[in-house]
């Protein structure tokens, strides 16, 4: 991966440039809003990427908490499988679902989360899940910041206001604040229990993600309706550009997360070595 990184970085840069070209030139001009609608090609992919990163943070935090005890780890595995199965069945049984929410999209999301849970478990050790949680929270906050900045820049010319205390906007701001407080906790707490406390905060903080996502279905909001899997409709050419931009941002997010993960891993190794050094006298004896 270390050798492939420059090539992947170059490919991602080319992909992002192509996505930018698609957003500014290829995508058709929206009739009502005009060119300002093109903000959508950065706003929506950033939101989806932030949600995905917070979901990974949630799973990594749960694993960090449960893998400390083999029994709780096993129980958690069965709970995850049970939640996946029950959600999939419930999506077709429970009625009414919010308007325009398809059971198939609920099943896909549930199965993807279950798959992600076991993939992370297979790829990361207990300590590595803590680093993964920190990394994804940090990069997720960056993407969420982009959402909160580009949203008002679209709203001002379209709605005539920068901000309104609408459910979608407010819950997104709360989500951002929760993860900023998570990062502040990790940065400034000196307690040895910090990773556990941060993981617990992340598990509860992640509950805001579905609220943000489903708020436009459940509540009457000023925010536009969803363009995929919901009541809104979108020109196929616009959808194509949107998906290209999302894919480009996903590649970018992966590279940033990987870099940040490696830096954090190196930092922890240095800190461990420094702590060991501090314990040893110059002659090599333990103090």
């Amino acid at each position, binding site marked *: 991966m270390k050798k492939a990184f420059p090539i992947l970085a170059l490919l991602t840069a080319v992909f992002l440039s192509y996505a930018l070209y698609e957003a500014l030139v290829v995508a058709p001009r929206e009739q009502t809003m005009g060119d300002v609608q093109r903000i959508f090609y950065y706003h929506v992919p*950033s939101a989806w990427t932030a949600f995905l990163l917070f979901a990974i943070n949630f799973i990594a935090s749960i694993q960090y908490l449960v893998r400390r005890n083999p029994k709780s780890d096993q129980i958690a595995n069965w709970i995850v499988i049970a939640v996946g199965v029950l959600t999939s069945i419930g999506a077709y049984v429970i009625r009414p679902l919010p308007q325009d929410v398809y059971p198939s999209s609920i099943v896909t999301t549930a199965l993807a989360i279950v798959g992600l849970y076991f993939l992370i478990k297979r790829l990361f050790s207990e300590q590595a899940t803590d680093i993964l949680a920190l990394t994804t929270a940090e990069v997720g906050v960056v993407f969420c910041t982009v959402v909160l900045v580009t949203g008002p*820049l679209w709203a001002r010319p379209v709605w005539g206001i920068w901000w309104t205390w609408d459910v979608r906007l407010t819950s997104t701001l709360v989500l951002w604040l929760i993860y900023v407080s998570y990062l502040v906790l990790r940065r400034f707490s000196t307690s040895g229990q910090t990773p556990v406390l941060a993981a617990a905060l992340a598990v509860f903080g992640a509950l805001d993600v579905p609220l943000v996502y489903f708020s436009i279905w459940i509540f009457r909001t000023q925010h536009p309706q969803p363009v995929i899997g919901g009541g809104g409709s979108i020109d196929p050419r616009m959808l194509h550009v949107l998906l290209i931009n999302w894919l480009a941002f996903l590649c970018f997010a992966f590279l940033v997360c990987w870099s940040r993960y490696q830096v954090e891993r190196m930092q922890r190794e240095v800190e461990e070595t420094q702590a060991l050094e501090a314990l040893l006298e110059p002659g090599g004896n333990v103090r």
Partner: protein
Amino acid sequence: MTFLYTAYAATWAIHIAYLITVVRRYSRVKRETSQLKKRA
């Protein structure tokens, strides 16, 4: 068009600012690693 360009510029300004913090952390860790190697 001003709002559109501002939004795109702001997006990249945020990402670049974060990338700078990652690079600075990497430089610091690298410096600390080389100091540890010198002492060893």
